[in-house]
């Protein structure tokens, strides 16, 4: 059987709440990182509180699958990726990713982690569809998701507001048969 945790640049892993709390507390202080990844107001949590969030999540939630992303060459923790099952009935999940370490932006690490997360959704969880949303200004993410095979399905007009500027959000999806067809051509 194939190693579904391992890509070409990164591997999916998990870390102790302490280690994750340290990393997230540092990444959260980077506003650009937050604005790429999230639409909630940027907030600064203590390591203690983040650790509690992580411990809570460890109490096996069958609807969410979260991984930390490690580089293969140096085994460095660079970000996180997660699947939040929107519905087992409809076999669909949301996908979210953030690369906290700026030095690893735009170099294919995120795209590699995305491929692993999508593969996990289809091959391990047996889902039919993966959905995601992004800010329209996040062009790097759009390109990455298109590379993985996501198709643009719509645009919510003026969904976000930051610094008094309204911006759109984009919504994408990939179906299992589309992904399988992509794998065959490789």
């Amino acid at each position, binding site marked *: 059987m194939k190693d579904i945790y391992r890509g070409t640049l990164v591997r999916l892993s998990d870390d102790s709440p302490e280690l994750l709390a340290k990393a997230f507390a540092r990444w959260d202080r980077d506003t650009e990182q937050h604005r790429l990844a999230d639409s*909630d107001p940027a907030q600064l949590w203590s390591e203690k509180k983040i650790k509690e969030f992580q411990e809570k999540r460890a109490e096996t939630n069958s609807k969410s699958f979260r991984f930390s992303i490690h580089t293969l060459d140096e085994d460095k923790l660079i970000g996180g990726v997660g699947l939040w099952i929107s519905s087992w009935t409809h076999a669909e999940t949301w996908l979210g990713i953030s690369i906290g370490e700026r030095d690893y932006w735009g170099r294919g690490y995120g795209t590699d982690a995305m491929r692993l997360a999508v593969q996990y959704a289809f091959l391990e969880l047996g889902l*039919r*569809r993966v959905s995601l949303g992004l800010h329209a200004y996040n062009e790097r993410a759009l390109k990455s998701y298109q590379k993985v095979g996501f198709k643009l*399905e719509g645009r919510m*007009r003026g969904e976000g507001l930051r610094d008094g500027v309204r911006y759109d959000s984009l*919504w994408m999806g990939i*179906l299992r048969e589309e992904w399988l067809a992509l794998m065959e051509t490789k």
Partner: protein
Amino acid sequence: MLDIQTQLFEAQDVRFGPIDHEAHPEIESKWTHDAEFMRLLDLKPARPLSPAMVKKQYEAVEKEMDEDKNLFYFTIRARADDRLIGKALIEWVDWTNGNGFVRLGIGDGEYRRKGYGSQALSMLLRYAFGELNLYRVTAVVPAYNEGGLRLFQKFGFVEEIRRRQALNRDGQFWDLISFGLLNTEWREQVKA
């Protein structure tokens, strides 16, 4: 000028009211035994609920309204006799960005296709845009819900997202359509 004598919760044939924890569980329990209604209104698996279960849901709704402040839930009543005929809600309100999701249904079969849903949606939009001051609202409708699609189109909602094959029902896959309406667009319509 601000009209303080206006009534947000009164329309021609229907009105909004609060939940009645004594009288309503029995009525809404009957609606949950109508599989078609459940599948039009909700993406979650349809399931019949006893009045006791509905009562629990009502308690959860009011708890969420009170504690999270991002849910606004109304019962739809027939004006003639104040009878419960449906529900209308604004949920998942995102205050930072000024968004909310609208959803409504007429549970009582006798009151469907008579324009009561339209009157309720008018009130709901006025509440979302005039009282909550939202920037935009979203309505999510399964592609098989033709009545729902027509209703939101009639109110000027724009189709923004089509999630391909996001729903699996009766062994078929259906698109899930997401409509959006901006406060500015709604104001233009109300003026006209």
